[in-house]
């Protein structure tokens, strides 16, 4: 499938990146038809009509799980309680930096998306939970919000209607786990950033025990485009079933041109992305491995990358699209060291409330540490390798939140696909260890 010749728009966000003045309200109004859809939605459409349009658009959540947005919004019960649209701007999955682009250059798309989404679910106060490290982005976002308030797009009687909508930015304190939606909600409420046991799901009992939709920045910033194009046309931007629109991809690692790229959902294979967008593996080296969806996605070896880059095809080859962050490893990459680094991250970021993740992630890190740093003194044993896989198996699928899976997936897949490197390490064969694979 190729992009239809007569489709005028193929990229929604990317053309607006990289110029600071683009983040201003005037730009959004002049060049992006800004806030017209918000007005239209508030004055002409019922919440259900908005949700139907989003459903037609096949807009999937961009936060990691790829859950259909329209469906998520339709789960919000029409009860007499405050309802919240909470924007997940925690963007902490290693390798991911797409939401940052939106916040920096098209913040008003996010704000307009929040206005539309709030109408759809009946929210009067929306929160943007932004990672603590995004200090500059929090400031930029606040400036955009201030512009919107000044114009009457936010606050009381917004856009000349009876509606009320406030947006509050809440800065995180630097914990990855606060990107998990229920950990985020706890943190937002001033509690420890620990994921909650589900059910109840946030749609029923989320922020302050009220119905809540937690959505990724990109997901919500995309909604104004859905309304402008109409759900059906938007869906057609996607070149694969069930995924509409475009995807922002954070491409990093050993490529010539790392960056954030936008593609029609499912319109390219992983190889095309690396070669056509990323300009191929750097320094003329060969490809060794690709981590296709943020560091928690199981790794693919060089011969597995002719896969269409979207949710289901990646699932079929045993990995995931996650936050659409692709990390490319050339043939000098020491996969054992890389796995240690990834594992260290998850052990460090575990909230510590459930047993397999709290104990297991640290244990895996300790073993990998032994393997990497003690290749010669016999502290690493051949049996460690299978033991690691077994431990990961006792974590994956068994934890309270998906961080456990995020920690287990890399361990299992790295060992499965690059086992000789691990064996070389435990043999003390340091010269050999990278050559394999």
């Amino acid at each position: 499938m190729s992009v239809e010749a007569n489709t005028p728009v193929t990229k929604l966000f990317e053309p607006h990146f990289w110029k600071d003045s683009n983040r201003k309200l005037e730009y959004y109004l002049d060049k992006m038809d800004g806030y017209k859809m918000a007005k239209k939605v508030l004055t002409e459409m019922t919440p259900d009509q908005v949700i139907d349009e989003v459903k037609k658009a096949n807009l999937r959540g961009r936060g990691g799980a790829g859950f259909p947005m329209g469906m998520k919004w339709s789960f919000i019960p029409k009860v007499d309680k405050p309802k919240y649209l909470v924007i997940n701007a925690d963007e902490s999955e290693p390798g991911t930096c797409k939401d940052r682009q939106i916040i920096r250059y098209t913040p008003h798309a996010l704000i307009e998306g929040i206005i539309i989404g709030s109408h759809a679910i009946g929210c009067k106060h929306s929160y943007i939970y932004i990672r603590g490290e995004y200090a500059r982005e929090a400031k930029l976002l606040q400036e955009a919000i201030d512009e919107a308030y000044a114009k009457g797009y936010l606050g009381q009687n917004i856009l000349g209607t009876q509606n009320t909508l406030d947006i509050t930015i809440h800065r995180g304190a630097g914990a990855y786990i606060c990107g998990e939606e229920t950990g985020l909600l706890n943190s937002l409420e001033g509690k420890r950033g620990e994921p909650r046991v589900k059910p109840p799901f946030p749609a029923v009992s989320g922020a302050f025990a009220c119905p809540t939709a937690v959505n990724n920045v990109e997901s919500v910033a995309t909604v104004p485009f859905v309304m402008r194009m109409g759900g059906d046309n938007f869906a057609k931007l996607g070149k694969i079933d069930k995924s509409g629109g475009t995807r922002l991809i954070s491409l990093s690692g050993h490529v010539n041109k790392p960056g954030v790229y936008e593609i029609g959902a499912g319109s390219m294979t992983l190889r095309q992305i690396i070669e056509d967008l990323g300009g191929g593996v750097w320094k003329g080296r060969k490809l060794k491995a690709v981590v296709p969806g943020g560091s928690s996605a199981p790794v693919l070896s060089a011969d597995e990358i002719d896969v269409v880059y979207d949710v289901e095809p990646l699932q079929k080859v045993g990995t995931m699209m996650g936050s659409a962050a692709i990390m490319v490893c050339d043939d000098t990459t020491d996969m054992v060291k890389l796995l240690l680094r990834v594992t260290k991250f998850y052990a460090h970021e575990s909230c510590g409330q459930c047993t397999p993740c709290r104990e297991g992630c640290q244990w895996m890190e300790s073993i990998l540490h032994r393997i990497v740093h003690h290749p010669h003194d016999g502290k690493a044993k051949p049996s460690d390798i299978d033991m690691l896989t077994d431990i990961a198996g006792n974590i994956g699928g068994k934890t309270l939140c998906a961080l456990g899976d995020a920690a287990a997936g890399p361990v299992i897949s790295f060992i499965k696909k690059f086992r000789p490197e691990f064996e070389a390490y435990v043999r003390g064969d340091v010269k050999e260890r990278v050559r394999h694979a």
Partner: protein
Amino acid sequence: MPKCTIDGKEVEFKPGENLITVAKRAGVDIPVFCYHPGLTVVAQCRMCYVEVEKMPKLQTACSTNAAEGMVVKTNSENVKKGRAGTMEFLLLNHPLDCPICDKSGECDLQDNSYGHGSAYMRHSEERRTYVDVDMGPVIEKNMNRCIHCTRCIRFGDEIAGIREMVAVKRGNNVDITTIDGEALKTEYAGNYADICPTGSLTLRDFRFRKRAWMLKKTASICEGCSKGCNIELQHEGNVVYRTIPRENLEVNKYWMCDEGRFNYHYTQDETRVLEPRWNNEKTSWEDSILAVKTALEGKKVLFLVGTDLTLEEMSAIREFTGLYYPGSVLQHFGTPGIETSAQDQPADKILKMTSKTSNLRGAEKLGIVPHNPRVDHDFSAAVVFTGGRAVLPELGHAIQVGVGVFLDKDHQTAKYQHILPGLAYTEKDGTIINHQGKEQKLKRAILPRGRSKSTAEILMLLANKKTKVGVA
């Protein structure tokens, strides 16, 4: 009622019940750590895995409610592997110091390890260690033994109504401690030791006094206030070592207060009067009884019963006074200021009542009126019956006879011309009526101490015509 199937057995359930509860009804025990029926469900320990048909992942039984037609397996290979994995994780950093751990023998970690863990250890890294905080007089903390189940945190938050136990740091370094390392403040701290599934929180009062498996257990009722918390007295060699709460959803649920928990100590106080006394001298029962009878002969007697006595004791006293001292006055006493059950109110939002004796309602049921110290009574002798908990009334200079439990250290005994030692609540059977009007049974845990006698026996001796005045 809807039904589900657990390990092949069809079980009925009430909507909203979780699989742990429903399985228990089917006779299937699912191992747990973080789950406690009196606390919110957090599904953190990951011990209670079960397999639910049509669900690809193992589910935690504590956080899964039964549903119509649900088919659950609690013992599949998958479940066993999951549990063994959790057990292994929990023991990675556990000191395994059972031989010197006070929880040993009643430790969920130990039991579940035997039941679901492995005898071998694959872990060869150094263990994590913590520095302990001083939690005050009730609880001893040993953080190295903690399995981070957060039961203690939730108990504080949800039951004791005080956020004092908290988790600090994160991941592998999570420390379960008090805010700023301060001493515990709740008056219900003993429960922390009960609910801790390991030896991380132990009762200072009990530590190292007896191994858990040596204790005999007697189900009884706390006499600390009119709540009537259901308790278990744990004892050995005729000594009570510990009181723990017993589940009664209508009264105390799973909890008890510290005052009630440690109340038993006075019954074993070394200054307790365990032999009859006459003018502060030890004497024999025969001499005592004769002397008391002589002292009371022909007098207008005020009989006072403590509301810490059982219904049976009170009713025997009432019968006795009617038969042998007609015209005498019978009144009850117990907690100053709380003379009727209408005045008895919750003392906090948890369990405690303002009546610090257990059986005010019992005395009222028998028609005994409150003693009013402000009204002058025309009497020349007084006999005070007490279980040891009621606050003794001031009686001026009338001849005073005390029957029941008296402690020299309370500085009251010297005022009594006669003391006839009776039984404490740990030493007798009987009925008490709590503030709700619920009749509950005290059970004798240990035998009478010293030469003390039951109220019934003492009354019999006092009533016996053969015991003549003047006979040694």
